[in-house]
């Protein structure tokens, strides 16, 4: 770790101003950022700690949407009665992230801003067609995830909350990478007002929607329909834990399991 300053602000606006002024970085749960700093892979001169900003906290039902503050910890989402009632798949997704320590520290906003290619939340946000609110604007999920560790967020732009439209039904099935237990492949399937959405994490450089699966499931929402879909391996990740072909194979298999879980 290199030396750094850590600062606190008393509002999101003040935090954003501090970040702009110092060229620093937001600190949420620190579960990705601190690890990178320890390995000297990240070298922020200043960290602006978002913990304690009440504007970024809380889970509430707002009409047909569930609104979750950026600083809400994974463990809170997993345990929240509102989430379990409205979108149980999201609570289950949060419950399946990392271990207890990670879930007690890691946040929704941090996970989305980080956009790890194997992270779970991006699949939930994209699969549900959520809207990301920042201190500057609102960004539709379809426009938010831009590539490997890349998002639509500008410099100093902070996620404040995420609004998830409540789906008819949804399920997330994660096939864990054996070592990290991030998603080797994770598939989020949702039946929403806007049709069937299928978001895939772990398989590509960034979360993506599997159009072929969405179309197939729009026609018949059955496990067999999902299983019959062939996903091309081109462009998918290949590493120690799985070839692109293997990941391509797992996508419809996991989608079918998600659908089966909803039957």
């Amino acid at each position, binding site marked *: 770790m290199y030396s750094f300053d850590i600062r606190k602000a008393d509002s999101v606006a003040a935090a954003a101003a501090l970040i702009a002024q110092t060229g620093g970085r937001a600190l949420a749960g620190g579960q990705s950022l601190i690890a990178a700093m320890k390995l000297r892979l990240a070298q922020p001169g200043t960290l602006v700690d978002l913990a304690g900003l009440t504007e970024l906290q809380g889970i509430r039902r707002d009409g047909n949407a569930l609104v979750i503050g950026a600083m809400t910890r994974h463990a809170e989402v997993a345990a929240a009665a509102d989430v379990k009632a409205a979108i149980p798949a999201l609570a289950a997704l949060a419950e399946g992230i990392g271990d207890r320590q990670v879930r007690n520290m890691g946040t929704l906003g941090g996970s989305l801003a980080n956009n790890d290619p194997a992270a779970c939340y991006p699949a939930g946000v994209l699969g549900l067609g959520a809207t990301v609110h920042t201190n500057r604007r609102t960004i539709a999920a379809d426009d938010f995830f831009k590539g490997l560790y890349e998002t639509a967020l500008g410099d100093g732009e902070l996620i404040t909350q995420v609004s998830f439209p409540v789906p008819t039904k949804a399920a997330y099935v994660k096939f864990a990478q054996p070592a*990290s237990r991030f998603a080797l492949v994770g598939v989020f399937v949702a039946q929403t007002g806007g049709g069937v959405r299928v978001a895939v994490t772990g398989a590509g450089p960034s979360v993506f929607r599997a159009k072929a699966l969405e179309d197939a499931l729009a026609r018949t929402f059955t496990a067999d329909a999902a299983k019959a879909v062939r996903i091309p391996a081109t462009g998918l990740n290949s590493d120690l834990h799985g070839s692109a072909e293997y990941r391509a194979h797992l996508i419809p298999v996991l989608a079918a399991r998600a659908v089966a879980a909803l039957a």
Partner: protein
Amino acid sequence: MGANETGPIGQSVRRREDQRFLTGAGQYTDDVTMAREAYVYFLRSPHAHAKISGIDREEARTAPGVLAIYTGDDLVGVNGLPCGWLITGTDGKPMNEPPHPVLAKGKVRHVGDPVAMIVAESLHQAKDAAELIVVDYEILPAVVNGVDALKPGAPQIHDEAPGNRCYTWALGDKGAVDAAFAKAHHVSKVDIVNNRLVPNAIEPRAAVASYSRADESYTLYVTSQNPHVERLLMTAFVLGLPETKVRVIAPDVGGGFGSKIYLYAEETAMVWASKHVNRPLRWAAERSESFISDAHGRDHVTHAEMAVDKDGKFLALRVTTTANVGAYLSTFASCIPTILYATLLAGQYATPAIHCEVTAVFTNTVPVDAYRGAGRPEATYVVERVVHQVGVDLGLAQDEVRRRNFIRTFPYATPVALTYDIGNYDATLDEAMRLADVAGFPARRAEAAKRGKLRGLGYSSYIEACGLAPSNIAGALGARAGLYEAGQVRVNPTGGVTVFTGSHSHGQGHETTFAQIVAGRLGIDIGSVEVVHGDTGRIPFGMGTYGSRSLAVGGTAIVKALDKIVAKGKKIAAHLLEAAETDIEFADGKFTVAGTDRSKAFGEVALAAYVPHNYPLDKLEPGLDETAFYDPTNFTYPAGTHICEVEIDPETGQTSVVAFSACDDFGNVINPMIVEGQVHGGLAQGIGQALLEHCVYDRQSGQLLSGSLMDYALPRADDLPTFKVGTKVTPCTHNPLGAKGCGEAGAIGAPPALINAVLDALAAVGVKDIQMPASPHRVWQAIQAAKSGATVAA
């Protein structure tokens, strides 16, 4: 002292050391603090293979807080790190033993090879300074795979090892094996890779080294399994210091699994530098540093063939192995794939002829050395995989093919140089089958099939040689050290007993087990026995803990010292009781005149020894403090059968270990709970190897791809079933405890049981072969290949 602390030998006495471990009161190397400490950081090679054409440290030297920076050329008078075992090749020549510099000299040979040592006021400053050192590397082509390294044109790693060959060595009667193959009814063959593992003790390696100008002596706190061996190698071979001037202390150590046996570069450089800087120096590895600097394990590529007759009787076994020893020879690297491997290839079977040829090869990888089991897991994996194949080829049930070949007469001289003293392999197989409910398996398989899942059952009937070792045999085989153990029993004037043992406990529970032996043998309360280990300043001598030797060898040394205590106590008691020494009996903590009720308690005799007012001073020295060295006459041979049941999801390739049953024969057991704990830990590691753990280097760049726990999969509790374990006992015939050793059995027995189970499950879909680890990806690929009729990729 709790009520549970009274029962001695054979009782599950709770581990006395756990109070401090579980409450955070353990004192590990990194807990040791000294005044005026400075911090050490090692700059390591980012390249697998490169020439160093220059090191510029000018800017680093003047960076804030920097006290000193050393590179290989600065270590004048410091020799290379030694290898403790000389192997003589089939060509009659000694193995190629290239220098292993403490800090790289002119060349780096693996990612993580230490290049410079930075000493600074803080760790932070040392790391900052390291970034200012400019090393001029000329990158060379690298080779990381043992088989690749032997190919013509492979990059040459050492001038002293042409063709990257360390040695080619063989054991067994080749002529007899060839003759048996010529008349065989059938030959079963397997090609196997024993995957490279990274040990990952929970406590990373660490050291605190200091120098005293007052008496020109050094003190080293270090994470070691054998502080005397560490001191001997460091002083005699590397630093040229008298042993009397170096004290090595291995305080609480959080796991070793072999990786802390060796003399490493870091602590050696630190001892040397502690005098030059004249400050105590501190270093602790980070996890990512452990991955590229702790000795790795396994990494064999093997072809094995078993010749059998029409009844499935084994006629001969032929094994050819390439063993990747890494970039340099680690302390015991040379004997692991030879002496501790080929000698175990008889397994539990009366195979009349066995021949094994091993080529050890240098590669651009971290050195490989003993890792839990050390050679014996590799041997067991070969034997039990090929035995499974015989069963498959001949259509024999897996228990039947084993039973037809079990050794049943003891002592039994194997064709690979060992003599098994005792065992009962039918007993452990029967019990394992009962624990595993083999009879109910067909129903479980059918039920799984209804759910679209594949079930399989796999057997492993392993043997290991523990209790290292008869020193004369080891010496004849090339050992450069003895392999006895020392124990000292000091009875204090008021009857408390301090035991000094050369064994080292780094999780094994010696403080409890050894105290049980002493309390049981002396008939005293366990609470008055203290066990001291891990300090060359306090222990008479010690060869340390590895190879499941502590109880069989270290425990026996204590027993021998106890015998001397009792013998002397009898003399004292005879005087006090005015009886003949030959009439004194010792039992239940009392010296009694045979056939009378006249007796002296152990404590009274101890007091008389230290307050010798009424004492035979003309014939007997005062005091009650005895030391014994014990050199075993044979190895011990723990054995057993492990049965693994897996369920495979053919859609994803995911293998779940649904049941694991192990019946082991460890000889007499002192503490059943500790033994069960050792079995559980070993099984977790064995299952880890077979299912999850895989150290992978990039074949082009030589970079370690599985260099962190994000990519190197250690087993977790939820990867494991509830183990069913049992024991059968045939006491070891040649040590007074009748003990054989239990620390490695799980890691040895489990891998073939698991892979055989996977093969049994996958046979239904036409898969004939799979390599460890049976990761979901691999299993899926094997199924795909079988479906398409292709041969399965390794």
